[in-house]
């Protein structure tokens, strides 16, 4: 279930240059699951979709880690504790819970990292098999929540394109190494489409489920307008079938997406 409600901001933290994490509170947020999102009212014509960066079901709290890219996110970054956000939440199909006995690889790029942290926060404590978080960004400032992963018992592998933090390069190198070691691993990834396409390609031989959290421009956010589609399987002679990120996703299994059309 999801609701339309106003939730107070209980914390607002500048976590990196141009990145703010807001924590909001409302009983409906107890139902939130990793990979789901909130559709947030801002001064623009459309709401802004933002994934949950952390979820505290006991207190009905959820985090929203926002990168400032335009007017809506700039407005969000200016909010302070005590103000309210008007949200539709929790929305969408989140990550399917990982198998605790199977190796688990989390791959996040930039603002794709927050939903993966919420997955680790939720399922990490019960996980018995090896696990690894690979966090990538163009430069060190874009690597988010590395400290949160560490605090939750998982030292992340970092990769930056300019080499300013961790390894120089993309998340693909570390992902290939982990998959070579644990070919049966399950993978969860979120990040720019280019990164997800590479993850999808590299993980093609993996025997475990590969879940990818997608982004698309949205209208309603709740499945009514068919704005937010991504090319999906099956691909017919005239092209792919289009599925909604807001309700069929944001999280899709690798096989569900028609990568050659994205």
């Amino acid at each position, binding site marked *: *279930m*999801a*609701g*339309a409600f106003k939730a107070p901001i209980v914390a607002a933290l500048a976590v990196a240059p141009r990145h703010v994490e807001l924590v909001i509170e409302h009983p409906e947020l107890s139902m939130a699951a990793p990979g789901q999102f909130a559709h947030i*009212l801002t001064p*623009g*014509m*459309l*709401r802004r979709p933002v994934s949950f960066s952390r979820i505290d079901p006991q207190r009905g709290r959820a985090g929203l880690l926002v990168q400032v890219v335009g007017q809506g996110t700039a407005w969000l970054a200016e909010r302070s504790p005590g103000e309210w956000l008007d949200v*539709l939440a929790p929305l969408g199909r989140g990550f399917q819970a990982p198998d605790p006995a199977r190796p688990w690889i989390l791959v996040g790029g930039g603002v794709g990292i927050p939903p993966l942290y919420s997955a680790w926060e939720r399922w990490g404590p019960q996980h018995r098999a090896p696990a690894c978080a690979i966090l990538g960004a163009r430069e060190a400032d874009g690597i988010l929540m590395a400290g949160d992963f560490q605090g939750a018992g998982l030292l992340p592998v970092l990769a930056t394109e300019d080499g300013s933090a961790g390894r120089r390069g993309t998340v693909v190198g570390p992902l290939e190494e982990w998959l070579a070691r644990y070919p049966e691993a399950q993978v969860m990834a979120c990040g720019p489409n280019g990164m997800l396409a590479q993850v999808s390609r590299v993980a093609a031989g993996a025997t475990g489920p590969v879940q990818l959290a997608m982004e*698309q*421009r*949205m*209208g*309603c*956010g*709740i*499945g*009514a*307008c*068919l*704005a*937010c*589609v*991504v*090319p999906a399987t099956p691909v017919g002679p*005239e*092209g*792919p*079938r*289009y599925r909604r990120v807001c*309700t069929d996703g944001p999280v899709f299994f690798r096989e569900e997406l028609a990568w050659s*059309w994205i």
Partner: protein
Amino acid sequence: MDLSVRLPRGLTLKNPIIAASGTFGFGPEYARFVQVNRLGGISVKGISPEPWRGNPPPRVWETPSGLLNSIGLQNPGLTTFLEEDAPFLRTLDTVVIANIIGHTVEEYRTVAAGLQNEPAIHAFEVNISCPNIKAGGITFGHDPDAAYHVMRAVRSVTDKPVMVKVSPNMADPWTVAEAVVEGGADMISAINTVIGLAIDLKRRRPALGGTTGGLSGPAIKPIALRVVWEIAQRVSVPVIGMGGIQSAEDVLEFLMAGARAVMVGTITFQFPQRMEEIIDRLPLVLAHYGFRSLEEAVGAAWTSRTADGAEGGE
């Protein structure tokens, strides 16, 4: 104040606020946020005989006070609609309008015939005005003769109330309205989206996957009001107005321009409960501007124009 609206062929709305086609899915999507049965009606997403895949993404782009979309009428087709969507619609206690689309006159007839015996559907809205598909649709909507033939084909297979949705993307939209009334239309709905374009600076190409799109939202309200004004004074059938409605005051403007009822689209994305708020406030707003009934407001701007000594209305 009684907000009910009597329309042709016994169709009665409990109030004049209808959810606009394409912005309200097939009904259940918003049922978690909106008391659907409080609405005067809902017009469902356009339905074609076979499934349509729609346009490639991105399909929406925000513009100042507006929304540009190129959904391309993605829909599951008539058979799936009847199997999967009609059962929910049958449970609703509000007027359900089927928005119908086709590439050919025959396809419009097929959808209307296929829904004629479906109890969930109380009326048809023939969409000959969507700017987002290449064949069919708007090519009928911009040609009074073609529009007449689409309407005749639909009329030949149904005795349910039929409205035809008119495009604002032509100089004289009333010629199409007059033609479809001649062809048997019981009502006119106006307007569909205004054709437009946005450029994505970063990608150096049109922002939308469908290249051009249809503009909706507050940006188009003056365009919509003018079209409703022109049509309502020329045809004898009721006009359902829409385009950029955000408030009960906006609804009153449409009523005074000559609409009997309205549809509300884009604003629902921002404020799912806005239609209910409008229904709650409408009696107050009508009273505030000196109207004792809904009926009294319909076309009220025509006579006052005469009263002011300006050129007369009808």
